[in-house]
């Protein structure tokens, strides 16, 4: 009780003081997870659309695979990316291990299947509604996929959001490939894990609160955008 109380008091002081170390951690978290989300969308959304619209051998297997990969444990992704980037690994020559780039890569691998699987679902529904029209107008499947990606852009914001939510909240992958180095690769989640185990609750609590507020705020923005778009475009 008292520990929690003093934790909150100190947390408030940290927040109000504009502690530079704290904000660096928050900013790095945002940079890593937002970049990973953008990259995952660039790969996962076209991939999901092709899985929904395309007809090629192995499509069903890929759909099942991507759906299964939505539940990949972050630590396993971290381990795989670690092996790729470690000095002896195939990408070891680039010296990316324990850098923010490695963390972006790991989170991208983690959430691309989520974005792709959710996109596939959205595009499959739209395809169901529009495939006769698009065939009738002579659109190729590639063109149809692009058309539907644009037409469902507001629904797809939810897929991006799900990816971002997963990225910003995960610990395991960034911990392994980033190494949780103070001032270099320390993000909100890894700091919370570390500070809690050290017994420094105020910093952990502050970051926890910021994390929750951030996720809520981004959810709110996306919700508002979807509502606006439905009123604007139907």
């Amino acid at each position, binding site marked *: 009780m008292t520990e929690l109380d003093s934790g909150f008091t100190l947390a408030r002081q940290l927040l109000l003081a504009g502690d530079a170390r704290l904000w660096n951690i928050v900013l790095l978290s945002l940079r890593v997870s937002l970049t990973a989300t953008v990259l995952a969308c660039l790969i996962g959304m076209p991939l999901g659309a092709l899985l929904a619209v395309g007809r090629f051998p192995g499509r069903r297997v890929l759909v099942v695979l991507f759906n299964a990969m939505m539940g990949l444990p972050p630590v396993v992704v971290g381990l795989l990316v670690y092996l790729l980037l470690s000095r002896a690994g195939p990408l070891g020559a680039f010296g990316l291990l324990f850098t923010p780039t490695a963390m972006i890569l790991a989170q991208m691998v983690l959430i691309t299947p989520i974005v792709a699987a959710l996109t596939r679902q959205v595009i499959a529904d739209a395809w169901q*509604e*529009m495939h*006769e*029209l698009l*065939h*009738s*107008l*002579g*659109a190729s499947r590639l*063109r149809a996929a692009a*058309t539907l990606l644009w*037409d469902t*852009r*507001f629904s797809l914001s939810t897929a991006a959001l799900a990816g971002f939510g997963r990225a910003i909240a995960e610990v395991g992958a960034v911990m392994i490939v980033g190494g949780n180095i103070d001032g270099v690769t320390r993000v909100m989640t890894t700091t919370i894990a570390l500070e809690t185990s050290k017994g420094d609750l105020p910093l952990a609590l502050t970051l926890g609160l910021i994390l929750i507020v951030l996720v809520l705020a981004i959810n709110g923005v996306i919700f508002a955008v979807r509502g606006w*778009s439905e009123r*604007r*475009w*139907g």
Partner: protein
Amino acid sequence: MSTWLQLERLRFAPGERRILDDVSLALAAGRTVILGPNGAGKSTLLRLIHGLLRPHGGWLSWRRPLSQAMVFQKPVLLRTTALGNVIYGLKLKQPDAAKCRRRAEAALDRAGLLHLAAHPARLLSGGEQQRVALARAWALEPELLILDEPTASLDPASTREVERIIKDIADSGARILMTTHNLGQARRLAEEIVFIDDGQMIERTAVADFFKAPQSAAAKHFLKEEIP
């Protein structure tokens, strides 16, 4: 009237179901309306002719290939403006953006919708949405326009306007092939009636003769069911 499409023993039977059974039919009129009860296979026939479905047997023999467009029962519109929807249809065939825009605007104008060009298409009324779909088809200047129950869910005023547009499209030289459950509409729009029932071709008759004295017992029965 010379035959522009001959259907030879056309069969469509996915899985265990038999939707069309050896339909042989010559289409020759400028405006043909396909009538028949629900589940007769009217929509399937249109889709086979338009190339959206492939027959499991038989074949279609075109006198010469015709450029086609199709309008569906439920207008399918993209999340963009009314004009954007018409342009989208053109853009797939015509790379010149300025030309697309001019033709799209002209088509919207003919459909009486130019004042709604910048309006989000999906927020228009049901009747206006169907007219956007008609304008999109018309802009393509098809030689054959296929319509699947285009006024099924429209009020009388919208239905009248849609019929006016279909007539104008026919007058501009396109052949019309459509289905409807509105017998008054069939009377007003058709030159010939094709009657199908339970996947079978029953009769093809000039419109006046069909409504006065249909040749088949099935068509007689079908017409008797109409509520005056």
